[in-house]
């Protein structure tokens, strides 16, 4: 590395910081969507960097379905308290009370009520005009098409055929009454970049990313943990050394067989992975366009 060059991780970092500052400067009431996962952990660290020595000037918001892993709740509360962030928790209480669950209600419907619906309600309730999300283009093919500043209509919907041109580093932040934007500062990061950055920066993450013995049921090649409550019949369950590659709701997040108990081992695994990161996410598998469809309806 000669002088006056920075590594690509620092380059990605600098670009993300630039994006966050644009949002803080130009929107009235931004919020950072915090899903407790590794990408959120990285996003929060970038926010801390962007506004240092001040605190980042927006709250974190967790859209809770009530179906997250217990370790995630524990981590969330401890982490937010430690960094002194303002945390907003929003849930679709009405549908949670009705017992909305992927097994009962169906995967797509459950997502639509507990995640998309709750998110749109929360954005309206708090009057947020911009919401940071940790989505990355590498994750999924319709995300690969989305802009960093993704304009949403008054129903939070994405119109993939009518996206604003996004040129250089000049972001058009002007919106009409009722519109909002989702901003994806991690757009150009890959799964491997995230892990390398977590290592480089020593960023705290939820412990279930690491492997340990878990009781699971193997269904369609996906390891479903017994503790998820997604499985009625526990007799077929067996103990497998596994970890979670990405985190979602318990009933819809499978584990992967893995022995990785350190960051370096996770990185090694990600590097040689044969399958994409969202392989274990049931919500993506319902059809070839399922993510695009969800985003059109207002999903993250």
């Amino acid at each position, binding site marked *: 590395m000669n002088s006056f060059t920075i590594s690509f991780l620092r380059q990605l970092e600098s670009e993300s910081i630039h994006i966050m500052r644009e949002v803080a400067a130009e929107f009235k009431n931004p919020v950072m969507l915090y899903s407790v996962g590794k990408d959120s952990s990285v996003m929060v660290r970038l926010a801390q960097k962007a506004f240092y020595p001040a605190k980042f000037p927006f709250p974190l918001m967790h859209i809770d379905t009530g179906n997250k892993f217990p370790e995630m709740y524990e981590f969330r509360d401890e982490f937010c308290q430690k960094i002194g962030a303002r945390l907003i928790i929003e849930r679709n209480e009405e549908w949670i009370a009705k017992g909305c669950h992927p097994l009962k209600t169906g995967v797509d419907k459950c997502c639509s009520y507990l995640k998309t619906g709750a998110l749109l309600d929360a954005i309206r309730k708090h009057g947020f005009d911009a919401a940071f999300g940790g989505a990355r283009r*590498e994750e999924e093919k319709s995300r690969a098409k989305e802009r960093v500043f993704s304009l949403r209509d008054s129903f939070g919907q994405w119109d993939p055929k009518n996206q604003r041109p996004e040129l250089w580093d000049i972001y*058009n932040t002007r919106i009409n009454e009722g519109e909002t934007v989702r901003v994806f500062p991690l757009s150009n990061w890959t799964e491997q970049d995230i892990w390398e950055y977590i290592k480089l920066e020593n960023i705290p993450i939820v412990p279930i990313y690491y492997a340990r013995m878990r009781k699971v049921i193997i269904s369609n090649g996906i390891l479903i943990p017994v503790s998820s409550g997604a499985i009625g019949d526990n007799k077929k369950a067996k103990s497998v050394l596994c970890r979670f590659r990405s985190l979602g709701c318990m009933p819809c997040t499978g584990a992967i067989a893995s022995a990785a108990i350190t960051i370096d081992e996770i990185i090694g695994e990600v590097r040689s992975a044969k399958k994409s990161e969202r392989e274990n996410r049931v919500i993506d598998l319902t059809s070839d366009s399922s993510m695009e469809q969800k985003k059109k309806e207002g999903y993250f």
Partner: protein
Amino acid sequence: MQYGEKSLLRFTTTGSVDDGKSTLIGRLLYETKSIYDDQYAAIEKTSKRKGLKEVELAYLLDGLAAEREQGITIDVAHRYFETTKRKFIITDTPGHVQYTRNMVTGASKADCAIILIDARNGVLTQSKRHGFIISLLQIPHLIVAVNKMDLVNYAEDVFSRIVQEYENYSQKLDIHDIVFIPVSALKGDNVVEKSKKMPWYDGTTLLHCLENIHVAADRNLVDFRFPVQYVIRPHLDFRGFAGKIVSGTITPGEEVVILPSGNVTTIKSIMTYDGELQEAFASQSVVLTLSDEIDVSRGDMIVRKKNLPQIENSMEAIICWMDEQAMTINTPYIIKHTTKYAKASITKIVYKIDVDTLHRQPADTFLLNEIGRVEISTSAPIFFDSYKINHATGSFILIDPLTNNTVAAGMIRNAIRHIEDYTDDWADDGGKSKKSSNVIRRELNIELAQREKQNGHKACVLWFTGLSGSGKSTIAMEMERRLFAQKCNTVLLDGDNIRHGLCSDLGFSPADRKENIRRAGEVAKVFYEHSSIVLCTFISPFKKDREFVRFLFPQDRFVEIYMSCNLDECRKRDPNGLYKKAQSGLIKDFTGLSSPYEAPETPELIIDTESLPVEKSVDMIENYLISNSIISRKNIL
């Protein structure tokens, strides 16, 4: 090499589906082991459903349902892969002319571009168009991949002919580094592995080329430019200016100047979350602190005192029109340039470029995807360099204030000067020194006194001055209505309206304000000479400028009316929402806030609009006109 130390290359690919672009990208991803099994399985499933014999790699890239349906690329897609040497970000862009704006979007940040040419078809119009856009956007490196060599028997002469033809064409363009590679994306020749079928080719493979392009040298490390993004104030004792260094380098202790205020100070420290830096350079996001407590806000730019950008209200630029709605000339758009917004209008179309033939042609509008050269005026000075030497300070977007759409991408060529620099002090001689010695002044055809006699009243100028919101327009309009009812000849020159037309090329810097008032004064004079009572409503904050206008008229015919109203009250009224905008930083050089107002010392009339109702104010002016014999009671009867 450590993972984090790899360098980054962004490249853009363009060509039509038939050129094998998706196959080429698929090949690059496949051979660098960047396609996951489940992703492959998904496109395999789709291919089968569509009844295709082979797996269509294009589906990997065409992420939207509409694209897979139609088998075309519509919008920019991003793909990521890496080798042991480098990380790559591919922005895959559509090649069809209908999607030119998407190609421009995808190419805007690229270090390198790959244009695909089908060896069987040779150089087509579209390959030329792609080269033209690459050259417009000043992408420093171009690779022309001549694909489907397997279908022309790997023949050297086919390749050479294409190279020859494209080189001839590219001489017309501004491209300095161009490499030609014969490939077969389908068979993998010269993509990652060197082909054994083309021994006559002694160049490198595509991947090798991508891995070794030297991009660090493309950056501008000379001109320090720091557009202020955000002011960080955790407590009263700390004020830091957050932003990204877009070009150049900086160290603590260096003397800098803040634009547009011109205040000079030194860099106290360069702060980051990870500690203070002893030097920072282009592409780093940092926080600068300054040695002196001076006013700096978002949209300002910190630069070195001896290396200033151009500071202008007008410029010449190449723009690509990106909106369905056609461009209209002299209409206010919004320009976003670095972190700064201003009003902007396109004052002139120099020419439109036929992107297929490169012919320049006259035009009076630009439609979607059209490209050409224009002149632009902005309401506030823009701090820029030409795009060629500095992409970050030479680029801008235009936004439609009604729809908020991004309607154009612009690349600045240079400044234009409509206005001469007035260095001499015109107030002393009434501007006479500006006159060309060859201009002869003709006498008025009909003398003013004769016209006045016919009209039954004298001509004069009522010059309303005061802060925005002080009541100038309200009272002048009411006054005009009253005079009109009395059969007087009147003209109302409204400061805002004049800025839309006659003075639309002017901003709000002191020099431009001066010119604005000079023109208004001259226009008022024309109407005055034709026996009108000319009501002029201009903030006209500078005493000198008002004095200049006063000198154009006989002493008793110029009535300066000072609308006295304190700033807080004006801010409360804020009839056009301008104070709000100015406070949020959208308007710079706003009189009363960031630009001074020099109240008249001895105006003919002072109207206290805070306490005086409109009706009473108008009475006051009317009485003045009567007692000075401009109008008579007769007019009223």
